[in-house]
């Protein structure tokens, strides 16, 4: 009778153990399926090119770089909609905006005009702006350079990215 009881107990615990093993396998398989489904969805979306995902117990964790906030929340929404996803942890980082953004043609005209105004006081200097970069040529006396550069550097707020004065002679 004692033997039978311990055998029963052994059998029951074996079944229980097997049961947990099956559940563990099931969870892992489910997570892997969800991850695969998410990756397929991300791959098909141009905004999500740099987004990576990891899934554990139905919780999807996103990492990688997004170009802006809109991109980040879009990725989060996309993943939330995938079957099996219980929760989304969005750890995507947003890249900082460019220091000098690209300006419109209208703004570029205003910038060129502002450069012309700044050069009015330095008659020997010529300047052209292309793609928001100013190239200076001609001649200027050394004592006038600082004042000119002060006026030109202020145009960064109008979209001026940099000044190339390699060919400007200081005399």
């Amino acid at each position, binding site marked *: 009778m004692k033997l039978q009881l311990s055998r029963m107990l052994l059998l029951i615990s074996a079944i229980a153990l097997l049961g947990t093993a099956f559940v563990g396998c099931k969870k892992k398989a489910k997570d892997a399926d969800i991850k695969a489904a998410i990756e397929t969805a991300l791959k098909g979306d141009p905004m999500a090119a740099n987004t990576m995902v990891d899934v554990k117990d139905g919780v999807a964790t996103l990492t990688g770089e997004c170009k802006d906030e809109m991109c980040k929340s879009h990725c989060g929404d996309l993943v939330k909609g995938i079957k099996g996803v219980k929760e989304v942890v969005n750890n995507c980082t947003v890249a*900082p905006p*460019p*220091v*000098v953004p690209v300006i419109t043609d209208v703004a570029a005209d205003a910038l060129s*005009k*502002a450069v*012309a*105004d*700044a050069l*009015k*006081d330095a008659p020997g200097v010529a300047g052209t702006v292309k793609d928001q970069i100013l190239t200076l040529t001609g001649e200027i006396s*050394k004592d*006038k*350079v*600082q*004042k000119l*550069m*002060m*006026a030109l*550097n*202020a*145009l*960064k*707020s*109008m979209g*001026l*990215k*940099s*000044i*190339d*004065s*390699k060919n*400007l002679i*200081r005399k």
Partner: protein
Amino acid sequence: MSLVITEKYKELTDAAVAAGVSNLQVREQDGVLYVDGDATGAVKQQLWDIYGKIDPDYSSGDLMLNINSVAGVMEGAKLKVTTNRTNLNIRKGPGTDHSILGKAARHEIVTLVRKENDQWWVIKTDDGEEGYSYTQYLTPVEA
């Protein structure tokens, strides 16, 4: 992460911090260092002198120093005409393509009527002449 150009201008950025430049931003992008902030005219001059020491003749083209010394100037403020040698033109509109209405003498004190933009302000002389002048040559009279 220490970037090469940021290191080159360390003396300048350290001075900016020490001088209490407000809204100070120091960022490097595409080989150019951008230093932005607001300060008094005296601090702006100090930083530009350091710039000139590090990059004689300002020929490297690797720094854009955008220190605004007129951000806090209010309408009605007194401004001193700080041209190099000549008088300051008072124009009909905000640009050198507009006709000249009158002139303010070097070192004359004028009054700020309105800020059109960062480069052009509407000013008024004691004689009652009113029009647009280039901010490069207008220095707020500091109390």
